[in-house]
């Protein structure tokens, strides 16, 4: 397993055994990561939809941009594979 993950409530930390990098996953990042573990081929629209279903999202939050940015970040560090 390339990544070692340790969850602390809504947050997590992850260790990349390939690069030696260590990452912090804020609640949104962790939620998205868990989603993608269950549904690897999810589109970013689909991700937003499922997030809204599973979690209470603060009203007025620019969810779309945040989700896209977070997904980008997760791909960049290798936790999620881009489609």
């Amino acid at each position, binding site marked *: 397993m390339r990544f*070692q993950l*340790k969850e*602390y*409530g809504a*947050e*997590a*930390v992850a*260790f990349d*055994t390939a690069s*030696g990098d*260590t990452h*912090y*996953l804020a609640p949104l990042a962790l939620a998205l990561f868990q989603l993608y573990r269950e549904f690897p081929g999810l589109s970013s629209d689909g991700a937003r939809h499922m997030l809204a279903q599973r979690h209470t999202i603060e009203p007025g939050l620019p969810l779309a941009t945040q989700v896209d940015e977070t997904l980008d970040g997760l791909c960049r560090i290798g936790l999620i594979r881009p489609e």
Partner: protein
Amino acid sequence: MKLLQLSSADLLECLRGSGIWLRTGPFSLRVRSRVPSVAAGLADLYGQFEVRRAHESFADFHVSVNAPNPLRRWLRPQVDFSFDGQLPFKPLPYDQAYPMLEWGLNWCVSMHAHQYLIIHAAVVEKNGGAAILPAPPGSGKSTLTAGLVLSGWRLLSDELTLIDRKTGLIHPLPRPVSLKNQAIPVIQAFSREAFINRPSHDTAKGTVAHLRPPKESVRRQHEPAPPAWVIFPKWTAGAETRLTPRSKAQTFMFLAQNAFNYSHLGADGFRVGTQLVDRTACYDFSYSRLDEAVAAFDRLADTPPWAG
């Protein structure tokens, strides 16, 4: 034999000759120096530490603090810290010879002792639980550490928290506590028991002096302790004494970024760090009055499961 049992003539002779062998926590040292303030510092602050006068055959770290060029004595005299013949630092003014020894010894440990995860934090113990105090410079960590060890807490270390990778326990390295600038008069006033040596001025950190570690802390320097709390102190003028729970994930990240050798340990650094955070309660701590801060810590140590 303890260092205080050596006459000052003997101490000087050893330091100027083949060196003095000392045991500090898990590490043995061989220290050489012709600089009088180094001898004075050792005599003042290391009295309770074990020494061996006869030429001890093995030492973990061979160090010396000496002037680089005897001819410079009259211009701007300087001192070098040498680790087994290597000079890891640029020279410092002669007046800073003793603090340079302390900084050099910290460097030796943090560069080499990878049997531990080494966090840049103070650590103290009471009732069987250790409290780790990481903090950026200027947060008042050293003042708080000094206050605690002068109030019955055991000093494990003022700079280097050594976490044994195999057991997760914290190994003591109770060397003198470094105090800077305002902390010096504050601690002197806080306790009559406080012995602080002659300050060095104009260092990169301002005025620096060291507090003699409590006798009991040195006596127990081979007793490791389990970590119980990670507490981030912050001194702010007029602040209320308050302990607030802190995110464990963010605590872990801070510790990883402030460990000297986290990245050297690979996946094991991650394992030891996360296990540490698992088994400790993590807090932010704000305070302005040292006596109240100590009382707050005492209450924490007296609360089950930590009540002695």
